[in-house]
């Protein structure tokens, strides 16, 4: 499990530390991303490397990134959360409806968060307490949350024209600055996403309570005997997942200025593909935020490449499936080699 080895191997002053880092999955993903980036820059030098295109790719992938991080946390704890897409829609619908009725924005955001956390808690309790397979519980929740969202809105777009402007602008706000003769805009949501994720990545590595999730995922029985509260931590992973799903819901609702019951359709499949490509595995105990970021970036670059090279966009949907199978195959062969 290279990621785990590499990050704890970063002790000072020993040669094999570099070897461990080089063989790690993250390095491989950085390499692949660079190759794709170079290929696209070479193919469309006029368009691809421009800041506007890069900014568009990054800010557009922030939703998928937040959901992929949510999936990664649950995967590290040897779980699975197929309900991320539907809970995103439910949370966005709740917030939009409250804002439409002129409730204070903060109250709407808090209730949106509570809705997501409630779904996460139900998932966590049924999985950790009742011991039901995560795949089944979250599959049921996926259908349930989507159904409630559509019942609440009868499927309509929920716009909030009379809500305070700051919320519907914040999703599109950019720090404009000039460098040389060209304008550069740094979208606020992108900064927020990157900031929150970096903080969380540090916490996951250096904050003890979160660090224990690795132990629960690696071997629940050994963790139980080492005094780690496996049930509480498993529930926490589903609550954390709900938190990141809520964040994606806030950004999406603000950027599009509408809450919609069909947000996030298929998001869980993309998130799982990105997380697995990024090194997480359903066997638990392994996975890294940086790895998942690289996975999401790779899928986003491939998507952007399709558009720029006027490739038949229909094939782009196929690539996500192919990338997932290749990543899993690569992972399996590496484990088989490692284990023998």
């Amino acid at each position, binding site marked *: 499990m290279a990621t785990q080895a590499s990050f704890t191997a970063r002790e000072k002053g020993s040669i094999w530390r570099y070897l461990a880092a080089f063989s790690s999955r993250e390095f491989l993903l950085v390499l692949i991303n660079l190759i794709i980036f170079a290929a696209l820059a070479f193919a469309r030098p006029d368009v691809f490397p421009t800041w506007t295109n890069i900014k568009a790719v990054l800010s557009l992938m922030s939703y998928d990134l937040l959901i992929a991080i949510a999936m990664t946390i649950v995967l590290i704890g040897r779980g699975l959360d197929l309900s991320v897409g539907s809970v995103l829609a439910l949370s966005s619908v709740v917030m939009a409806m409250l804002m439409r009725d002129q409730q204070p924005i903060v109250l709407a955001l808090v209730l949106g968060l509570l809705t997501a956390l409630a779904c996460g808690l139900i998932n966590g309790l049924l999985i950790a307490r009742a011991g039901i397979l995560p795949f089944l519980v979250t599959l*049921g929740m996926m259908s349930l949350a989507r159904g409630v969202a559509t019942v609440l809105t009868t499927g309509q777009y929920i716009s909030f024209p009379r809500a305070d402007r700051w919320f519907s602008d914040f999703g599109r706000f950019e720090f404009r600055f000039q460098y040389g003769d060209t304008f550069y805009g740094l979208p606020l949501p992108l900064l927020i996403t990157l900031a929150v994720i970096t903080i969380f990545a540090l916490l996951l590595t250096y904050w003890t309570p979160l660090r224990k999730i690795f132990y629960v995922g690696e071997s629940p029985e050994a963790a139980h005997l080492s005094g780690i509260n496996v049930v509480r931590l498993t529930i926490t992973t589903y609550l954390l997942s709900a938190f990141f799903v809520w964040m994606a819901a806030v950004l999406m609702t603000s950027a599009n200025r509408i809450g919609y019951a069909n947000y996030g359709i298929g998001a869980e499949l993309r998130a799982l593909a990105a997380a697995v490509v990024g090194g997480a595995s359903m066997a638990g105990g392994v996975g890294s935020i940086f790895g998942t970021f690289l996975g999401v970036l790779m899928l986003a670059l491939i998507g952007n490449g399709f558009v720029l090279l006027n490739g038949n966009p229909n094939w782009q949907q196929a690539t996500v499936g192919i990338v997932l*199978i290749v990543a899993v195959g690569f992972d399996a062969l590496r484990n088989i080699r490692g284990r023998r």
Partner: protein
Amino acid sequence: MSKAQRNVTKNTTVIQYIGLAFVTFAVLFGVQLGFGNMLTPANLEVMAMNMVFEGILALGMTFVILMGGIDLSVASVFAFAEILGAKLMIEAGLPIIPSILITLIACALIGALNGGLIVLFRVHPLIITMGMLLTLRGVNLAITDGKAISGFTESYLFLGQGKILGLSVPILFFLIAALVLGVLLAHHRFFRQLYFIGGGERAAALSGVNVNRVKIIIYTLSATLAGCAGIMAAARYGAAHWGHGNLAELKAIAAVAIGGANINGGSGTIGGTVLGVIFLAVIHNAFVTSAVNPFWYDVVNGLMLLVAVLLSRFITLRNVRAVLTLKQSKIENIEATQRT
């Protein structure tokens, strides 16, 4: 173990079926009383046609789940069969029989590929079949460029719209397939092994069951059945479209779970799945007949899945309790006989 106790565990599955049948009839008659025109022959026919293709997928899914696996790719194999059949017959002008054969062989190969990857990579079947689902959906979209293909010959349309002995062809196929597969599962040597594999792969391997070979064959069977459903669906609608069968895999899994099969494998019957399919058909039709806000369908679907899963969990916990009581009595009476 007392006689009563013996009957109970034996009949748990039977009780589950009676409960399910009871609910189905309760809904059927409830809606008939409330809104009328539910039990008309035309409505029954339409109700059946509404779930027949998901039902055929559920038959294949039963074998896969029994074995402790899962097959998400059936929905896009279903659409792929529609499209390949249409392309061969309409664009390539092949006669009906060869194009159907080629399509079924192609589907079988996809199933074999699924099984092969699962066995080779030793990875959770959910990931492999999800990858196949995404890849194939992209391929379906790409090779038809999003457009439907139509213009089937009259005789081919009979496969979907024609009636034999008063029953439309797909329903007849579903009933015959359910009967044949039910008998095979109950009596044929090869299929009885599924219970052993579902019960415990290692123990099965020890007593001479070739687990890998069985897995590949079962995934091939599941994909071939999806192919048959696809061929008949193209005839039924007179058009092949990449969008057909969307989310059919989730309905098939729900039917198998509600039919009482244990999602971890080891228990479940074709009869149970048929009851699950009928139940979902009745519930869906009840929504239309009672003109209840159709959005409630997803909510009920999700709820039913969670209820079915909690039920099977409740049964397993009850059995564990029974074993403990047995052991306790053994300890006590051995202690009574010891002299030192």
